[in-house]
């Protein structure tokens, strides 16, 4: 039988400290959605296959459906709700809006989180870098063509924001 492995820990969600006292096996996805009521992070497959639940853990993209709460002590988690500032949109969100990316929108929080992580580490991602970073983020509505355009635009906007005129390629 599945035993409950209770854990007490602290971690950070979108900059706010959270006390967790519960099943250490619970995936971050369900804690975010059911207990913290941050429902922007989506459930698509539950097994790390679709990317709908992509968040950042310590700035790196991670599948919240396969990250257990027990592994998060002291860690910083960013969800789509923490992507933008209070009013302003994140460059990725701006680019997503400009390119009219979302159709049903369900996969898009995950897509944007994956894109934000990419753009943070690569100021001028080429097609190969985009493929590499986003191939695990499925979209049944088929918005990939616009995602590609939007990622490049997001990189451009980020460069402009950070005052750099030329991008670095990785």
């Amino acid at each position, binding site marked *: 039988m599945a035993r409950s492995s209770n854990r007490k820990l602290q971690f950070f969600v979108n900059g706010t400290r959270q006390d967790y006292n519960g099943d250490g096996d619970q995936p971050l996805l369900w804690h975010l959605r059911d207990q913290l009521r941050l429902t922007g992070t989506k459930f*698509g497959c539950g*097994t790390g296959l679709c990317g709908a639940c992509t968040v950042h853990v310590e700035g790196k993209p991670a599948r919240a459906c396969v990250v257990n709460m027990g592994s998060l002590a002291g860690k910083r988690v960013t969800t789509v709700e923490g992507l933008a500032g209070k009013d302003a949109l994140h460059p990725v969100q701006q680019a997503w809006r400009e390119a009219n990316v979302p159709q049903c929108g369900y996969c898009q929080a995950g897509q944007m989180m994956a894109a934000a992580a990419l753009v943070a580490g690569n100021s001028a991602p080429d097609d190969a870098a985009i493929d590499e970073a986003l191939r*695990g983020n499925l*979209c049944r509505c088929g918005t990939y063509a616009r995602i590609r355009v939007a990622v490049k635009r997001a990189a451009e906007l980020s460069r402009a924001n950070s005052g750099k005129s030329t991008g670095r390629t990785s």
Partner: protein
Amino acid sequence: MSASRSSCAPESLARREFMQAGGALVIGFSMQGAIATPSAGAPGKPAGFKPNAWLRIDTDGSVEFLISKTEMGQGTESGMAMVLCEELDADWARVSVRTIQPDGKRFMITGGSYSIAGAWVVGRRAAAAARHMLLEAGASALGVPRAECRTGNHAVSHPASGRQLGYGELVAAAAKLSVPKEPALKDPATFKLVGKAMPAKNLDALVRAESRYGMDIQVPGMLYAVIERSPVVNGRIAHVDDAAARQVAGVSRVVRLRGNTFPTYNYVRDGVAVVANSTWAALKGRRALKVSWHESWTDGAPRNGALASSTRLATDFQRLLTDPAVKTENGLHPDVVAVRDGTVEGMNAAFQSAARTLDMFYDVPLQAHVPMEPMNATAHCTDERCEVWVPCHFQTRLFNALRELTGLPPERIIIHTTMLGGSFGRRLDVDYAIEAVMLSRELAKPVQVVWTREDDVRCGLYSPPSRHRVRVALDAGGNPLAMDHAFAALSVWKQQEPTEIEPSGLDYAAAFDAIKFPYRVPQRVVRHRLVEQTIRVFWWRRGYTPNHTFVNECLLDECAHAAGVDPLDYRLRLLPENQPVKFANKGGEVEEIHTGRLARVLRAAADAANWRTPLPKGRGRGIAATVTDTHVAQVVEVEVTDGRIRVTRVVTAVDCGIVINPQLVKAQVEGSVVFGLTAALKGAITVENGRVQQSNFHDYPLLAIDEMPIIETVLLPSTVAPSGTGEQISHPVAAALANAIFAATGQRLRGTPFRLA
């Protein structure tokens, strides 16, 4: 069209949506008025329903469209709103759209890509009526003749004096006027909004990830549940050991749910629900559950002795297509003629005199819908009241099912339509919502039932599989003299709405897209044989259109190559010149293909794809087309290296009449290409021992971004009424790809998903 004003408060105003009608101007209309008969993909009967859409202008000038249509990413809301906003001369920024709640009087379904066409025909008239009323109210308020006034930008103006009054100020007076029955419509040449690339109304909410999908609903006191369902259709619970499950922290109840018996309209599997205070606890509890099943037992009587099997299905299909003496069970008509052009004798003579005959078998497998948001519903059902929050687009079906299930009067059943994380037809069935209500009744508490992806893949409904045998007789010049298209298939109607089948045994939903073949063939017959198995089939981005488009467009290519003629030229040569060709559908309905429009999209796609420019070795192009009311042609370009198929480019030409929002139409094209390629290249659903053998995206994969071709779209200018783009554009992809693979390799692939020898 019916009109209603706050002052006389007729029936429609009693509804929740109009509680605060105040001095608003409200016009109600019926969207189904645009559709003579819903066909495949839009089951059910709208007859006798009340208005199911309203246009409401408030005294503060805000305009709201209340529609019975559901947004699921296809741009319905924005497209419809643009049409109404244009005709009303309203300010786009002050227009909002809301989905109504079903109440049993209003038919609510979104399907068959009819929404835009409906808005065009009926919605426009309602908006025009409102505009005329505002114009009249404006003219009298300004004390000038009506003919001197104009509407525009949310106001009535009098250019001669430079005065104007906003719509908001005129609403109270306009609402007292009578509604013109045949208001003059705007000339499309004067359109300002329609035709512009506009962002979807909900774009901001989507990029902020603030849209509330079914799964995002949280109701106070809500419990969470997952259900272990019978692994086979019609299985019954034999034994449940829930001791371990109930010990999982957070699990509060384990509840047996008794489903019903397939085939039926609203089939629900038997299941064991694990109820908990979080999704995770419910999932963990379910893992600890031990359930055994009676697998081929139904209401005491053994039935369908053998469990469903794809292998057996393939054998049955083959037998039905090759053995004319086959007797089928269940009183099925063994060989039903759907259409015959010419005569039996003529057909026989043609095959005897043919210079060449072709005999081809094509296969279309089961496919799953797998919308990214898995099935889910949140229900709170007590003895008094039944409230459901659900991502659903056939609300009338759910409403009726819940009335039957709960016995509650209509006003006690409240269905909230949430945002939908995709559907592709899956959510036209409402099994997932019925289950949630059954469980909530049992618990007398609000509960959210979530399907895992495995539940979705294994316990869902699938596109109808079919096998086709097409025999063609060609004359010495390569032109077809005769064509015999026989197919065997599972029938959605047989399973869900058997009364839709004609007395002759003809299943129009299954056959119509084979009947609808505009190319010149003097002797032609389409025949079908339906098979029964306990595999649930359903509309899948329309019904059987993907199957028949694949067959029709591949067989044309095969004939062209047999004739030694370029496949584009061959099509153009066989198309009757620039005329509507009519085909009889169910209930005397007639649908047409306009051969001029079809030829135009074929040429446009070919031109944009440089059809006449040869490609290097190992690469090839294929062309295919399809027509609903929208005419679509596609050219797929492929590269085959080391036995690997890589699609490099897809060019689509679309004639969907007047383009309301080119941005949204292009989005539909891009998405449809991906959907079509996934079906053509990726997995298929198979069933053995009654069990679906796939479970998640590792064994039922979707196309990913790194497999994307370049997608180009040509929207052809048109002045005819707009038609839908939500489904049809995905249909020619597989055939165009098969034809491209043949051009590149000489290998003819006649079944999806494509695997090179």
